[in-house]
């Protein structure tokens, strides 16, 4: 795990000239951006703009057509099997629905990567799993099966599992999706807390404005039409900068900023 101070502002993840396509159909093109150590980096854009697809390419679930994703300068996209295995342990991913293994208890879910990548004994694994679950507010739920807990708890258990190996990077896919405002806020606080206390670099795919403004230190905005990044930087700065692309401004203000767009806000 890296300390928050000395690594700050050093590139942690570099996405270079990434083009994503399914056969002939290009989803996103020419994506280049850098996530620094300790950033809370937001990948935002309208539904269908390819945010989740970009995430899948960054974590190796899909292969980009062109370009590279580097972790601390080491290529992930072009790494061989062993190199990839090593890089995989540097990051954890929280999936939209938690993606917990339904045949395992929460403690077993969190303990699975520990059993694989560490030499800890079963009792020690259980202890670490209990600690991780406590960090996300799930103390006492170690022996529950995923079917026995709520959707918000799935997500938090998903975070606990993503954190199992103390990764330096955490990816979150739509953390607020399907959560009530309070739980969503608590999740935001948790994300910030993880960054503050562990120095973890955090990448979040989301379109929830309250979350974006609450947690982001840096971001990119993906545009459906041009299929690439049309704005970058902190969302607050984007909003304040008059030169920001009107599409981004509309997004960040829920469309209220832009009255002349035909049909928008048709008053009855």
């Amino acid at each position, binding site marked *: 795990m890296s300390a928050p101070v000395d690594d700050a502002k050093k590139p942690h993840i570099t996405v270079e000239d990434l083009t994503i396509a399914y056969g002939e159909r290009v989803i996103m093109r020419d994506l280049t951006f850098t996530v620094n150590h300790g950033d809370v980096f937001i990948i935002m854009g309208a539904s269908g703009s390819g945010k989740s697809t970009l995430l*899948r390419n960054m974590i190796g*679930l899909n292969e980009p057509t062109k370009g590279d994703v580097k972790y601390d300068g080491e290529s992930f996209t072009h790494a061989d099997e062993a190199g990839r295995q090593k890089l995989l342990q540097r990051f954890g*991913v929280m999936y939209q629905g938690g993606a*917990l293994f*339904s*045949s395992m208890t929460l403690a077993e879910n969190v303990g699975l990567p520990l059993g694989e990548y560490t030499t800890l004994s079963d009792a020690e694994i259980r202890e670490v799993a209990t600690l991780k679950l406590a960090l996300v507010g799930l103390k006492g739920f170690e022996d529950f099966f995923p079917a026995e807990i709520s959707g918000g708890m799935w997500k938090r258990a998903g975070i606990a*599992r993503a954190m199992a190996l103390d990764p330096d990077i955490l990816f979150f896919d739509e953390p607020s999706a399907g959560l009530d405002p309070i739980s969503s806020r608590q999740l935001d606080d948790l994300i910030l807390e993880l960054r503050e206390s562990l120095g973890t670099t955090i990448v979040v795919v989301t379109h929830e404005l309250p979350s974006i403004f609450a947690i982001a230190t840096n971001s990119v905005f993906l545009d459906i039409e041009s299929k690439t990044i049309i704005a970058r930087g902190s969302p607050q700065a984007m909003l304040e900068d008059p030169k920001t692309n009107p599409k981004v401004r509309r997004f960040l203000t829920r469309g209220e900023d832009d009255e002349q767009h035909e049909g928008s806000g*048709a008053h*009855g």
Partner: protein
Amino acid sequence: MAEAARKRGDIAVSRSGDGTLVVRLAGAWTLDTGVPPITDVEQAFAGSPKPTKVAFDLADLGPWDSGLMSFVIRVGELAAERKVPLDEATLPEGLRRLLALAARVPGQKDARHAKRPDSWLARVGVATLDAWDDAQAMLAFVGEVTLAFGRLARGQARFRARDFWLLVQQAGADALPIVTLISFLVGTIFAFVGAVQLERFGATIYVADLVGIAVVREMGAVMTAIVMAGRTGAAYAAQLGTMKVTQEIDALTTMGFSALDFLVLPRLLALCMMMPLLCLYSDALGILGGSLIGIGMLHLPPITYFNQTFNAVAISDLTGGVVKASVYGVLVAISGCLRGLQSGSSSSAVGDAATSAVVTGIVAIIVACGIFAVAFYILGI
């Protein structure tokens, strides 16, 4: 009909002095009473001279819903085709707003899937290409499974022992009731059909040979395999398909686990281990079913019946059946896991995957059965 009380809407088309086409609508214009055909309006449009505009007279209009709306939209389309203006001011306020809402976003032309009817030849071509792709995918999967077995042999494959033993239980002990039922009945049916024929020659004792050889050589393995394809193969496809939908397989991948090692290997091993045992059990139950007819209906002494069976069945028949069962087990597991991993990310896709797993499994079993028959014949077993 009781609904007849609520009368269907009426339509009357007329022309006013200034050439306006007045469409007068009266009564209920709702979906449940039905909407009158638009032919009157079409005819009125066709008449000359061309109307200057279209207006509605809705003074006597009763209740209305989307039925009226779709009618008005069609009138609007007719008017637009002939470049006749539509006087929307004559429509009720709520309807006008709904129409504006429907027209706000222009229909995206490329959003609709192109659905041109393919020619017969094109469909055959597409089906052939699909079958070819499918065969390639299956071969690739078999190759990957083989590699995974190699990793297992070198002790590098990783799956949880607890998952494995649970799968063994599900594919073994839990399958006993259905295997019992099917095998026993198949044995009985064989004996019964054979008894009716052999009785004519006074050769009823050969029912024991018939049942023994048929069950031990072929039917025990095949019936067990088909039961397992429907039971366990479908379950594997549904499990893996659902894990794909819930991103559990993605999670495994980003945690550095191979889905093949973690999910497919234990399932394959479990079935491969349990199938021979189930097959032996099925053989025994089949012979027992046959003896029910032999002893109960044909009044053969039990000792004679079983002696006849054991004399008829060679040990090579038994081992042959068990080997076949093992191979069928691999086929069922591979089709189940392959279809599950190929599943799309929706609930209907998981259902399709389960269906496809059973079909693939049974086809594979029958093909393998044929190959075994030829091979055993050539080898003289």
